[in-house]
């Protein structure tokens, strides 16, 4: 007997409701919702209007405007600014390549890209900066665009080279800033402002990541000594406040190290403190990821003849790290913000330079403006990192469960 199958039916179209409809359902459905809505609107309107009045009327932004250079590069010698700009150019070019490379859709620019470009153009036009800086910014934007165009053309099998290129760029930037090998060396005492914040943060992030992974693996190791030492390290560090570890790194580290490290400069000691601290937390995050990988994965790898190092690096770690990307990036964001503690040790990173600006007689009392400004800078970078982490997750999730 042939029974007729019912014909396939399209799913019902969800009714697009008008804004009025939406407001009636979501904001004014009952009398107490009406009251809540009105109270909230009043609070928001008053709050925002006061804030706007403060921003445009009361705040005296000249403390930021006159000190823009101090905020960004601090006491870096002006005749060497070109090295900072060049570093930015290198990074912008690579960022462009990586970005163009990771985009798969046909549209050349997305809306968010256009908005970002608009902001940059507006900044270049509006910021009260010297002509040379404007020219540099325009050049860097061009380089990034060229990188983007190039990145879109690259064949996908080059993707494994991107991390290598980032590594090379990182070393190149360090060389440009620090000098040596043919460039005039700069003493670390002139590293300051956002420049110092970025140098310490990225270096600490890059160094603490492998250390954290090793500690996490050590904590799972079948060798009792390795396991014990890793656990001890992690638990000790996690029981200490960061400020204490930074202090130890500044004061005690030179005592432990062999003589030729004794006069390790303050910036490197600070980085060491941040790395030692962050690695312990990263290790715990990574360990969570390791535990999330089913035991069958390592067994299948072993059964195929892969030794322990290959099993860990090809099978277990990639899955473990992917599972904990948000936690790891969260740790990086913390680390980035924690660099502000270095101000307490006399390092003039972004917060330190802000404090020193506030100590100038003509800017006394301009706390709100200065801290709002540096807060905005911290936020831009942290938000960027969290966006990057989301993109990475999305990319890694393509096709996988």
């Amino acid at each position: 007997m042939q029974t007729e199958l019912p014909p396939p039916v399209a799913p019902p179209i969800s009714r697009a409701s008008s804004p009025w409809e939406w407001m009636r359902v979501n904001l004014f459905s009952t009398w107490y919702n009406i009251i809540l809505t009105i109270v909230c609107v009043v609070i928001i309107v008053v709050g925002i209007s006061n804030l706007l009045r403060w921003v445009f009327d009361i705040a005296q932004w000249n403390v930021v405007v006159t000190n823009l250079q101090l905020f960004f590069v601090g006491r870096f010698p002006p005749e060497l600014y070109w090295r900072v700009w060049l570093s930015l150019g290198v990074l912008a070019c690579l960022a462009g390549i990586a970005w163009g490379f990771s985009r798969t859709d046909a549209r050349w620019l997305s809306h968010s890209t256009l908005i970002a470009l608009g902001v940059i153009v507006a900044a270049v036009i509006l910021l009260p900066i010297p002509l040379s800086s404007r020219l540099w910014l325009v050049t860097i934007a061009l380089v990034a665009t060229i990188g983007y165009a190039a990145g879109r053309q690259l064949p996908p099998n080059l993707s494994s080279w991107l991390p290598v290129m980032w590594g090379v760029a990182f070393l190149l930037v360090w060389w440009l800033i620090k000098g040596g090998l043919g460039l005039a060396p700069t003493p670390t005492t002139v590293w300051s402002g956002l420049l110092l914040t970025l140098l310490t943060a990225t270096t600490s992030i890059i160094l603490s990541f492998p250390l954290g992974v090793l500690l996490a693996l050590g904590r799972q190791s079948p060798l009792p000594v390795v396991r014990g030492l890793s656990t001890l390290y992690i638990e000790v560090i996690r029981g200490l406040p960061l400020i204490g570890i930074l202090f130890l790194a500044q004061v005690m580290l030179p005592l432990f190290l062999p003589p030729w490290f004794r006069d390790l400069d303050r910036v490197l000691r600070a980085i060491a403190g941040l790395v030692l601290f962050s690695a312990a937390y990263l290790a715990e995050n990574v360990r969570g990821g390791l535990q999330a990988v089913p035991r069958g994965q390592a067994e299948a790898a072993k059964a195929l003849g892969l030794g322990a190092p290959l099993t860990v690096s090809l099978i277990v770690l990639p899955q473990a790290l992917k599972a904990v990307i948000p936690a790891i990036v969260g740790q990086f964001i913390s680390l980035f913000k924690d660099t502000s503690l270095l101000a307490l040790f006399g390092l003039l990173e972004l917060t330190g330079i802000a404090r020193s600006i506030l100590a100038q007689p003509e800017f006394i009392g301009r706390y709100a403006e200065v801290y709002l400004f540096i807060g905005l800078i911290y936020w831009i970078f942290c938000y960027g990192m969290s966006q990057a982490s989301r993109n990475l997750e999305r990319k890694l999730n393509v096709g996988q469960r």
Partner: protein
Amino acid sequence: MTQQTITTETDASLPQKPAIIAENVHKWYASNKFHVLRGVSLNVYRGEVVVIMGPSGSGKSTFIRTFNALEEYQQGRIEIDGIELSHDLRNIDAIRKEVGMVFQQFNLFPHLTVLDNVTLAPIWVRRWAKKRAEEVAMQLLEKVGILEQARKYPGQLSGGQQQRVAIARALAMQPKIMLFDEPTSALDPEMVREVLDVMRSLAQSGITMVVVTHEVGFAREVADRIVLMDGGVIVEEATPQEFFQNPKEERTQKFLSQIL
């Protein structure tokens, strides 16, 4: 039991040296001192297909996992393809290259494409060039009927397809011996056949196979010998015909009455 071993050894139709020799293997689980293998002996000859049956918890998985050193054992002797299985890591590596394994839960690598799953071991363990590994992988994927899915990720395949990829992945190392641990137990019923068909044609290719399964039809048709394990020992060893029609041991009869 010993008699059975002797008769097969003198059987002129089979090559002389067994591919797998297990002699009086004992194992205790360290965590709970559970005596899981209580003196198990089994010879598997080249080209032979041995099916291991038995109630759940009788130690079947544990036993075949000792063959590629996924489980340690404390007493007895195991020799795989002429290599003594000992704590020597070099021996373990050598054995794992010769022994492929297919798991109940597939255990494909979810972060790699099907093709990368299959080429991984040949590239990293056998050190083949990528191109060669991919050619071989494509041939194997074609053989198991997954060629169109080569660029997909395991999570995008059905259970039966995943298990066939797992078989291809194990075969890519060109093993002399294949171990199957309940390869169809995690599958929806309609997918069991596609996997058993692949295993059947594999058996005809002459590779040595040890299969833990509850699939009576497969055992009856494909097995050269059927082994019944219960309580950590081998209870009975027989040809399929004898095993199903004329089981000698009472425990075998009881087991068969439960599954047939």
